[in-house]
């Protein structure tokens, strides 16, 4: 308990420092947020144009598709906002030997790396995601219950852990191979599949994004439960399970990675 309190305190301090840093480069951060907003808008335009040609996509209405899309952006955005420094581990922190610094400090290295940076660009995704959910929800006839609200709220942090866990696993590869940016990228890009209803894919793809690189669990399955009230045990349970398992696996690989870390230079 004391440890958790301390972690939150340190995290808050890092966040405050990051915000101060951002004030020094305000323009850049605004440009970044707008960049991510634009990325979402161009995808939405694509969806909108498609739905001018067809009434529904394999039985999914525009509103439902947009809801799933919006829902997918929330865990993605949260992970992006708080845990984006993992990319830097794969790109250069390990290769250039900058990881030395984390190892000489008396806090958990994974926590330190993740807490240290805040990726404000992510607001471009988060804001879009929340906005899309708010806009589409009233137009969808969703039956709400207390349980549903609770489960929906629970699914978000665990969906985030799916992202963070996959990034931790793949970033840790850098401890052995020096750089792993491209590996993180390859796995991370699979999340593209998560933005749309999983029923549009064939069985192979669907199984991969459900059981192997389970990005479908970050949006489609929770959304399925929220929209249709189907099978909460699988739709939410699997998300919780996968999020915890992937993060735990990531932490283990990371731990062994730090022991294999070779620093840089002579």
């Amino acid at each position, binding site marked *: 308990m004391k440890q958790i309190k301390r972690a939150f305190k340190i995290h808050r301090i890092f966040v405050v420092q990051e915000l101060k840093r951002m004030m020094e480069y305000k323009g850049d951060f605004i440009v970044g947020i707008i960049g991510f907003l634009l990325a979402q808008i161009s995808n939405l335009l694509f969806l909108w*144009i498609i739905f001018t040609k067809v009434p529904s996509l394999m039985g999914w209405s525009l509103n439902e598709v947009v809801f799933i899309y919006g829902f997918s952006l929330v865990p993605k955005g949260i992970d992006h906002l708080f845990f984006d420094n993992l990319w830097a581990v794969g790109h250069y922190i390990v290769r250039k030997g900058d990881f030395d610094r984390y190892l000489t400090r008396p806090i958990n290295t994974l926590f330190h790396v993740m807490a240290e940076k805040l990726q404000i660009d992510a607001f471009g995704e988060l804001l879009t995601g929340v906005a899309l959910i708010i806009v589409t929800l009233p137009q969808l006839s969703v039956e709400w219950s207390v349980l549903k609200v609770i489960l929906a709220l629970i699914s978000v942090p665990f969906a985030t852990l799916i992202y963070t866990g996959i990034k931790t696993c793949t970033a840790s590869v850098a401890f052995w191979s020096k750089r792993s940016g491209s590996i993180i990228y390859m796995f991370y890009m699979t999340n*593209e599949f998560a933005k749309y209803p999983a029923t*549009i894919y064939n069985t192979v793809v669907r199984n991969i994004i459900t059981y192997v690189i389970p990005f479908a669990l970050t949006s489609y399955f929770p959304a399925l439960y929220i929209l249709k009230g189907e099978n909460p045990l699988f739709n939410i349970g699997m998300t919780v399970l996968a999020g915890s398992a992937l993060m735990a696996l990531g932490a283990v690989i990371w731990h062994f990675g730090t022991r294999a870390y070779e620093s840089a230079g002579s």
Partner: protein
Amino acid sequence: MRRAAKIYFPFINAGMQEVATYRVNWIFYILGNVMSCFVSYFIWKAVYSSGGGENLEGFTLPDMIVYIFLMFLTSTIIGSDASYVVGEEVRDGSIVMRLIKPVSYNGTFLFQELGNKLLTEIMLLVPLVVGVEAVRAALMGGIQFNPLSFLIYLVSCVLAYLINFFFNICFGFLAFVVKYLWGANLMKACVVGFLSGTIIPLAFLPKPLEAVFLLLPFASLNYTPVMIYIGRYSGLTLLYYLGLQLFWALAFWGLSKFLWRVSVKHLTVQGG
């Protein structure tokens, strides 16, 4: 010419070595990028099976599939990192080093990147073209490959690459204004992606919008080569679009020269 070849060969060679060293990385990046192609593929399949009709805006499903993968191939062929490289050099000040070398500023970038691309292109072009043609043959019954279109496609790609390269050089100079180009690059990628038809064929847009977009330099990047490949442009139309590409290539080349001159002044005044 021979002198130029001698000067620039080391840059080509360096670029090629870079790729060879990081080839595994490069393959992973390509695999990552190809994901969104497959997502589009499934979405379009769903669209066509959801009662949109056999033919949308002149595209059948096989057309669309070929379009998606050709778009991917073309963007990879004409892709340029120049804005990142220039941006980075402006930011850390190493751009000054380019001043003291007796070779053209744009030239050094261009040839280093060409060396880089020469290898990647060949590794990517052959399997992807064979793949696309196989899909086309299977979907449309019979081989559709047209060597003449393919050749003109390659020419068009070269023009598109030059447009993209010089456009990116110009864009990189933005780093004199904005410190980190990351966000700006992302914005650029989105706008270009949409305006160049990568996300959705321009034919799907409202007609007046399509007409305007076709004139913009971005359509000259991906859309024109792909349209040529799948045989949508012929005769005078073909010449018109190639001419437009040439125009934009020259325009951005001129602009990059101009911006370079301005920034040299800026550098010499500021003392780097």
